[in-house]
């Protein structure tokens, strides 16, 4: 038989892993190029060193506080974009992330300020208040996500509609709960002690915690997608839901999980926001859903489903954040920023699609040639 003569090329480097690496090196390349351009064209800035009082010239873009700010601003979006990527890979969409983010933040904020320094129960030990607040935010986020998932699974209504509805509902709940009032005055163990934990480097204050959380979430999500059964099912359902059903996959359970995960990431982002800004109100995160979806899509997630990565979502968020940062640094009129970001989203996706088409054509050709060569041998 033919297989005796043609050993299988199992040992060849797995094309899928190579493919992912390729996909993301492209995005990484764009980010580096963007960084380089901003460094070169951004110009320099005179700042007075806070410690010594000496004036020194620094690059506007490539300096610790700008980069730190960039990373922290990107972290909210990146974390939610990773969760959104899961939903998008299954072929769904979650429009309610901004509202879930807001609702979890508001719940956490009310809890923290109730037990905080100025609250009714100011005597409570922050040692349990802070972990409880964190769990509360994550719990609220997950619950909201589960409700989305339940709506999608039980009613069979398109996720766009379900999450468009819950977007309004969750934000409305946040409004009602807070009576449109902002909550502040959290235990300092939570803000300065945890999320705004500061390290001083060269006289600059840096806040590494949001960054670390962002990277941890991404690593976990990337591992989950690649190494777990559910992760594989996520891709299968997005790639062909009918085939997944015909193959006996637990389609509904997996869908519930991805929406819950998307909610969870919104809860985690809310924790960071609470600690970083030290306050929350019911208008937090308005319009974030579009930024989050854009980040996931720029990172290679296909709205048709079946494609996307966690790292891609992170890089997508980073890239969008860099562009808005660049607009400030290059002194471009702020009014143009939306036009620029919008165009970049379309271009990024277009570029990705062209790449995919070329890659598939190449693969089809190599499969064809493999077939031909085997046929020659067998005949």
């Amino acid at each position, binding site marked *: 038989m033919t297989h005796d003569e043609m050993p299988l*090329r199992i040992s060849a480097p797995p094309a899928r892993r190579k493919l992912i690496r390729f996909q993301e090196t492209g995005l990484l390349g764009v980010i580096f190029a963007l960084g380089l351009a901003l460094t070169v064209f951004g110009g320099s800035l005179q700042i007075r060193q806070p410690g010594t009082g000496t004036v020194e010239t620094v690059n506007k873009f490539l300096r610790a506080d700008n980069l730190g700010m960039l990373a922290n601003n990107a972290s909210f979006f990146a974390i939610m974009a990773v969760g959104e990527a899961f939903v998008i890979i299954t072929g769904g969409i979650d429009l309610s992330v901004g509202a879930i983010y807001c609702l979890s933040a508001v719940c956490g904020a009310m809890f923290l300020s109730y037990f905080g320094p100025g609250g009714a129960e100011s005597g409570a030990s922050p040692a349990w208040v802070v972990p409880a607040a964190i769990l509360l935010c994550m719990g609220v986020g997950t619950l909201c996500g589960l409700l989305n998932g339940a709506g999608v699974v039980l009613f069979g209504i398109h996720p766009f509609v379900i999450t468009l509805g819950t977007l309004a509902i969750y934000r409305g709940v946040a409004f009602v709960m807070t009576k449109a009032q902002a909550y502040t005055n959290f235990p300092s163990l939570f803000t300065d002690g945890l999320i705004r934990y500061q390290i001083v480097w060269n006289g600059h204050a840096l806040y590494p915690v949001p960054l670390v959380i962002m990277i941890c979430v991404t690593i976990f999500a990337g591992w989950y997608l690649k190494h777990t059964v559910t992760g*594989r099912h996520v891709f299968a359902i997005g*790639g062909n839901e009918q085939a997944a059903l*015909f193959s*006996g996959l637990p389609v509904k359970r997996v869908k519930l999980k991805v929406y819950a995960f998307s909610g969870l990431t919104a809860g985690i982002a809310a924790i960071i926001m609470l600690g970083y800004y030290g306050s929350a109100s019911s208008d937090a995160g308005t319009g974030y859903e579009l930024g989050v979806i854009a980040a996931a899509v720029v990172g290679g997630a296909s709205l048709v489903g079946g494609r996307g990565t966690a790292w891609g979502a992170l890089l997508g968020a980073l890239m969008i954040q860099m562009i808005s940062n660049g607009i400030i640094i290059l002194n471009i009129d702020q009014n143009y920023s939306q036009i620029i970001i919008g165009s970049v989203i379309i271009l990024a996706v277009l570029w990705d699609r062209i790449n995919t088409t070329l890659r*598939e054509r190449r693969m089809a050709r*190599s499969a064809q*040639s493999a077939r031909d060569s085997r046929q020659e041998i067998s005949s």
Partner: protein
Amino acid sequence: MPGSCHALVGENGAGKSTLGKILAGLCRPDEGHFEIDGVPRRFRSPLEAQRAGVGIVHQELSFCPNLTVAENICLSHLPNRVGRMNWPEVYRQARACLDEIGADCDVQEELGRLNTGQTQMVQIAAALATGARLLVMDEPTSSLSAAESRRLEELIGQLLQRGTTIIYVSHRMDEIFRLCDSVTVMRDGQHVATKSIAKTDETELIQLMIGRAWTKFFPKHLDRPIGAEQLRVESFSSPGKFSEVGFALHSGEVLGVAGLVGAGRSEMALGIFGLDANRTGRIFVKGSEVSIGSPREAMALGIGLVSEDRKSQGLVLGMSCGDNVTLCSLEHLSRCGIIRLPQERAVVADFFSKLRIKAASPQVPARVLSGGNQQKLVLAKWLARQCRILILDEPTRGVDVGAKAEIHQLIEELAADGYAILMISSELPEVLNLSNRVMVMRNGRVMQILNRVETTEERVMQLMAGRTGAGNTNRPTSVANN
């Protein structure tokens, strides 16, 4: 010839519908041309065909069910003034078209609300509305009741008298003999014979349709005695799809299922696989009664379905071949939900060599594989899940000749290995060669289960098509008629 009716007959997949589509400009021929009124033509679009006076009435009703009857009839030439719909004119034209063929239905009704018979009339009206002088009818009666079929036949008679030429594609012998003047037999995409209807008979036509050179070979699994009963189905019914289906399937046995398109074979397979909520009846696996409510439950009982349409139901085309193979067996290849990748790779490599799947590597997307290799992937998926009862629905559809032989060999090996296989196929040689027994279905009912020794192509074909032929999906002809 104006006013004549020419029948086009052949087995499933003989190329009748494709020929009709080429005539109507829906498909482009790879080569060659045809002549209309002595002029060689080659249509590039349905619109061109319409201009040349060719209309088609499709087998599967292909209209916009959400639009009104009137809109559907006038769809290709909606009367308008600078893009603004001229509604009175639309309704008037549609009314006129329907009157012409004597159909009565409300032109403002949504098409989706009409029954199949009325929809069929609307299709014909629409085809005539474009000024068709040559009408291709692709199995127009396959979804009609007996009364509706009779009305359609009357209408065809009227059209013929008015000088319309009709190409009539059908399986129903009695209709052909009543309506048509001449008949062309096709087989495997090729023209076999053209006869005047007066000079031929049913038996001859059936022989021409199936009469390919084939030898009955003797697969090795037939030597072995069949094993214990694996799957038994009793009084299995689903309204409008199949009724009172019953059979038993043993390990080491291939039970072939023959029947025309629409005989309820695939529907029955889906029913067994837990994908039909309306089905009633009893299913026994290994002698004990089970209830199967979803593919997941079927899978847990060791039943695997290689479905008719591998691209939409069998494979996740964008995923790698390897991932497709292990798609439903990941639970066995993981610990605490974490996939053991080395073990998975080993399983994939094992099945790639066992089933001789040809791909550049298991990591290429399933999309790039040829039809035969894709089919093997679907099979591998169920074998990897250790399913011992396999339902194969058209296992060699859209597969080239070499791969077909390989798949046949695989089926043979699996049966010899003790798998219980239910094989639905529209290819008679395939069914007759590989099966221990052949179950023939017509109109949702089991006509007969034949033993290998008593099957001949003629016998099966007669059971499939039915001698009396006046088929009616709502009131199936009973077994007693045969």
